[in-house]
């Protein structure tokens, strides 16, 4: 997949994320985010600085156009971009970086990709829920929200990986 195609699809996912945030508010326990999976899918050949910049831009766009607090999504998305390389190395091995491969369900296996998406999404949701609560909500509520949102967002993120992964 060319970089231009990737950027266009990435922007499309940002727009979809904004729509999802604006539309699907059916429970205070569940927030749906597939942007962390999009960060995971950024081609590794571009390096982590590129991922950080894209994460910052994506976060700011989502913050600005959704009905949330400015900086909240950005604040949660940047740790995902920063830990992305470490996470991918941990799950797919260092060969993944040596060959400069893109994330692919067919090559890496569905289980591995799902696990990577789950970890990055959970990291994002954890930071998001804690920052969103600002110390006012009880721990049990935060934990329940993290669990429910991580599960729901991971399932939704499989669609994101399908859109951005190099299999197409």
């Amino acid at each position, binding site marked *: 997949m060319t970089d231009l195609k990737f950027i266009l699809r990435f922007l499309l996912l940002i727009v979809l994320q904004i729509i999802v945030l604006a539309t699907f508010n059916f429970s205070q326990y569940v927030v749906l985010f597939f942007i962390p999976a999009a960060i995971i899918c950024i081609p590794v050949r571009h390096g982590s600085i590129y991922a*950080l910049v894209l994460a910052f831009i994506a*976060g700011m766009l989502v913050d600005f156009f959704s009905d949330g*607090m400015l*900086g909240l999504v*950005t*604040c949660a998305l*940047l740790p995902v971009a920063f830990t992305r390389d470490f996470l991918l190395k941990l799950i797919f091995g260092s060969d993944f970086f040596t060959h400069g491969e893109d994330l692919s369900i067919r090559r890496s296996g569905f289980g591995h990709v799902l696990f990577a998406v789950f970890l990055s999404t959970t990291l994002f949701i954890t930071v998001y829920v804690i920052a969103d609560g600002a*110390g006012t909500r009880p721990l049990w509520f935060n934990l329940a929200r993290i669990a429910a949102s991580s599960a729901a967002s991971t399932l939704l993120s499989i669609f994101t990986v399908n859109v951005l992964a190099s299999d197409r």
Partner: protein
Amino acid sequence: MARGNEVTKIFISAAIFIVMEVAAISLLATSSTLHNIWLNRFSHRVMAFNWGLSEDVRGVFLLNRRNEELAMENHYLNEELRRYREMDRYMEEKSHMATSKGSFQYIPATIIKMSRNSLHNYIILNKGYEDGVQPHSGIISEKGVVGVVQAVGRRYSYGITLMNSNMNVSSRIGRTGLVATLTWNGVSTGSGILRNIPPHMEVNAGDTVLTSGFSFIFPPDIPIGVTGEMSNDDGVSSSVNVDFFQDFSALRFVTVVVNPFREEITQLEKGLEQEE
């Protein structure tokens, strides 16, 4: 070389991440008062932790000096405590001191050791010739006669108590004014005998026995005990039991009675004996 580049990349990434994260957090703080308060509280906690940590680290480096300071302080406090204890003991000795009478000198003292279960019971006091104690000085308490000093060291003195078969005290029976010699009966821990009382003299039980003052050891009218039963010894003289006022088992503080003119009196006695 490749590893060095990788480390540099990680550092640069970390720096960019920190800058961006700080920017995002700043935006979050400005967009909501609640978040502003929360972040301020968090930063205060971090600052407090840092200050505490730096104080701890500083404390570790200053530990040796602090230990020396504490040791010195401990030393001074111990000195002070010792002084207070000395003062306290002196005050206690003073409070137990018998009333001064006549020209005698009174020196408060504490009993270091005392025997109570032999025929020749003795007493050791914490005052010696440096404190003014002289041999043949009387030992009394606020309850009465205790004994007589026999030997004096620099800081301690040795004496015999009323419960010693060698101890004789010139005594006077309060109501009649009869003078007799009091000795220990050698059996009981709290009673003695007044001997050589003329048989025609009647002594009632319960009369107070005091020192006569006819010796240079004790001043007159120091209480000794109360009279008990009277008995006829051999038809020529009688004896009277005396129950001591002093409870020797509960004795700790005493007063040494020193006669400063004892030497002069002794010299006079010697001179008279030579003339005769």
